[in-house]
């Protein structure tokens, strides 16, 4: 341990985990290369993204300085502020493209649902770490209420992608706290048992049609299916080595919609092929493994639960986004983490990694 501490000494004292940092830098570097192509070589857009990344890095480093213990103490207050702002969004929020997600604070616009991606798992980790592990039934019920309240508020905006991410972040905390397998299976069966009669008796034809279209977008080629068809062509035509950087025909001829945000993976797959994808997935996997390692080494229940939830939510981002653009999952608005263009999600993600670094680097101090 001594030699390791000396090699990482400086970073460790700065509360930065070098291994994780290297993984993130590799990912972001690749992301910038793809974005340059996907945005149609738009320099102004690259600059905006660069500024965001800079801010996100600063946020990550600042958060890494805060000890997990301090975070634990602040969790309930953060959660209450976040929930209050979610209610405020529904009442006085600003509408952009039909969804009411933004709170206008005068000098800048803020998306409270983004904050809840961290506030919800923090709150649940705070709550469950204070009690018996594995949690008792009544604690589970209260946890579910804590989780459901913000998720429903976000779903009402409507923002399906974020409410999916927030609810998985919360569920991961509960899962890691050791809720019994019997209960998990029980809920799964109850869910199925509830869905079948609802499908058969309660839903109307057009509602069923809408769900089917969401599950199988290709049945609606004039609507959402169009994106998927074009995305699959882009990915598939990439082949083993891709068409080369800046040479993707699907994306550059504007067949591919939203190609610098949610569908950026298709651009990457078209230009760099299966080999490029394996590299990208390896980097993602590297970051996730490092995250899981950090949480297993973590001290204290709160840190473990929160750390694991952050890592697993990152996994959900990746799986849902790539699953969606390759046509095996319904289209919900989830970006490819740290690659897609767009501000707030990058800051939240990096803040999450800041928490992981804090968990890892404050260990020794806690041990004293």
């Amino acid at each position: 341990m001594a030699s390791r501490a000396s090699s990482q000494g400086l970073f460790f004292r700065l509360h930065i985990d070098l291994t994780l940092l290297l993984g993130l830098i590799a990912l972001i570097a690749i992301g910038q290369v793809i974005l340059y192509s996907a945005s149609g070589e738009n320099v102004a857009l690259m600059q905006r993204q660069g500024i965001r990344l800079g801010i996100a890095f600063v946020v990550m480093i600042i958060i890494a300085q805060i000890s997990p213990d301090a975070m634990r103490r602040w969790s309930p207050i953060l959660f209450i502020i976040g929930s209050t702002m979610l209610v405020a969004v529904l009442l006085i929020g600003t509408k952009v493209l039909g969804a009411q997600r933004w709170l206008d604070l005068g000098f800048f616009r803020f998306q409270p649902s983004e904050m809840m991606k961290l506030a919800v798992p923090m709150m649940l980790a705070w709550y469950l770490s204070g009690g018996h592990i594995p949690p008792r039934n009544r604690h589970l019920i209260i946890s579910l209420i804590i989780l459901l309240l913000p998720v429903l508020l976000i779903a009402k905006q409507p923002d399906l992608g974020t409410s999916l991410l927030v609810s998985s972040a919360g569920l991961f905390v509960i899962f890691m706290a050791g809720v019994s397998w019997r209960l998990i299976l029980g809920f799964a069966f109850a869910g199925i048992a509830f869905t079948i009669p609802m499908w058969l008796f309660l839903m109307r034809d057009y509602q069923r049609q809408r769900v089917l279209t969401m599950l199988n977008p290709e049945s609606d080629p004039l609507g959402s299916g169009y994106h998927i068809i074009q995305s699959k062509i882009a990915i598939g035509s990439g082949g083993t080595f891709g068409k080369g950087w800046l040479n993707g025909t699907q994306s550059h001829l504007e067949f591919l919609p939203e190609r610098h945000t949610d569908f950026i993976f298709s651009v990457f797959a078209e230009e760099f092929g299966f080999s490029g994808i394996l590299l990208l997935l390896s980097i993602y996997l590297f970051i996730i493994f490092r995250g899981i390692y950090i949480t297993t080494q973590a001290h204290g229940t709160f840190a473990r639960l929160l750390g694991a939830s952050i890592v697993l939510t990152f996994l959900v981002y990746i799986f849902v986004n790539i699953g969606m653009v390759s046509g095996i999952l319904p289209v919900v608005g989830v970006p490819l983490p740290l690659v897609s263009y767009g501000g707030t999600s990058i800051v939240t993600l990096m803040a999450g990694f800041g928490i992981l670094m804090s968990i890892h680097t404050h260990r020794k101090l806690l041990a004293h």
Partner: protein
Amino acid sequence: MVQKQHFKDHFIEQRIFHNRSLVALFFTVILFGILTFRLFVLQINNHEHFTTLSQNNRVSVQALPPTRGLIYDRNGIILAENLPSYTLQIIPEQTSDIDNLLNELSLLVNLRDIDIKKFRKEVRRKRRFEGIPLRFRLNDEEVAIISVNLHRLPGVEIKAQLSRFYPYGKETSHIVGYVGRINEKELKTLPVTNYSGTNHTGKLGIEKSYEALLHGQVGYQKVETNVRGRVLRVLERSNPVPGNDLYLNLDIKLQKVAIDAFADKRGALVAINPENGHVLAMVSMPDYDANLFVNGIDSKTYKALNTSWERPLYNRTILGGYPPGSTTKPFFALAGLETNTIQLDHEIFCPGYYQLKGKAHKYRDWKKWGHGKTDISKSIIQSCDVFYYDLAFQLGIDKMHQFMTSFGFGQRSGIDILGERSGLMPSKEWKKRVRKQVWFPGETVIAGIGQGYVLVTPLQLALGTATLANGGQHFKPQLVSAIQRKVDPVPRLVNPQMVRKIPIKRQENWNEVYHGMKSVIHSARGTARRLNKPDMRYEIAGKTGTAQVFSVAQDATYKEEELEERLKDHALFMAFAPVKNPKIAIAVVVENGGHGGSVAAPIAGKVIEAYLNQFSDEELNNPTPIPPEEPIRKTTPIPVVKPDSTASSQQKGHEDHPHG
């Protein structure tokens, strides 16, 4: 809250956490495995397939708009059809400079500002590879000019399309209505996918209220195109489902007879089959050509139509509120009899005026020197006002309101086109609620001759007449008689809907009123005796009416010739025939026409004659047999589009229609 801290078993906790971490690791590997497998299938296994689609050809998806359903009259004569026409359209994706292209095009063909404005609006909402129409109905010369220049006009194409056409555009404009290009407001309410290939939607009349049935279901085709967007091969095709055809109860020949009878007069006519509420003819004069609106009317023509004092755009049959005048007398006579307020032998003496007890005001009869002794029949035949002043006073306004409401007055009839007005049948409660005033007895008296607050639409008057004619069966008036889905072998009939059955207290009461109404035509002193011709195969029952457009000062006499045309009385007539087994009930209003008997009745007479001439003597004398149960099938009520402000938006200017 569960706060610190029972004894925590750190060992168990550690073990649970490590177990769960292993599970998480396992899931991570599985999920990445799934993604890798999926991408392998797309990129390695199906690589060639997708490369073909991507590199040599491009795949695009084209919407195949459904063919709009046709509209026929009751005899199968087509009222709304789709004719091939040439449309000039631009595919934004294939042109780099749209402004320049529009300039080029405007040198070749005539482009109106409205065309360009609408085009630019649609550019914003459609996908870049979709063709966006710029000009409809190109003539042959324009098609030729553009075809010759096509090589230097990238993204421009001429498309053969179907365009809505109304062969009887003028005669049916108020009923069938028209389609027009989808506007911004409609964009928000119409289902996006189903209208992705559609440029037009119903704006008025049947075209609007039956939009959901007429439009059909969009289809699509996945096609391979070359670099210039030309279709090389259809990969996949899902055919559109054409809209339903509609059959109306309307008889276009009868409609034309009515329009000819009006000549250049203004007014409205509604003819209903009393046996089932079917609307046989529905005329609002003057009319206009619905075809003008299909591809965008130019603002000058529209302004002329919209601001004309004759109000051609105004559908008088459902929007016009007229004082019904004496046409209400048969209803009030029946009301008196059925409520036991008067008996069959009731008789008054008419001195030419009526006074309420203790009041000096004289309510005058149209006949200055009075009708003398007047019984029920005579009161209808000669239209004695004093008889009804007195009867109204005895009945009281609330009984009158109640009785008339059951015949459909003062209510929307529920006819299957939108925007209908409810008219007005006043009551004490109504005046308190709306006018915030108490009811005065004098207002009851003038309501007795259909003046004062009372307002009816021509549709309501026809419906009331039909209900009176058939012994109290109040039907919902129905324009659409049958719906033909393309998959069905025969059209499904729309069943008549009875709103209510008015109970008959004594048949003799009804017969007395029928007798009076018959004598209006078939007796020497009837107000509509000119309809009586020696060789008639049937008898008509009717009632004339003359509605004052403004009040005449007490004791003043006036000469009609001296009045400006627009201040002249409205002429009204309501009738049904044959008196036994009625087959047609009709209401006619001629605006500023003068006397009902001389102006409105002849129009009704011609329509009745034209309609009944198609029946044999035997059919005339017997009720129409109820058709056999097959192939009629029960239909569910038709989903009529909910009325909204767009339905009557173009009629906004007509709120201030003249009345009493």
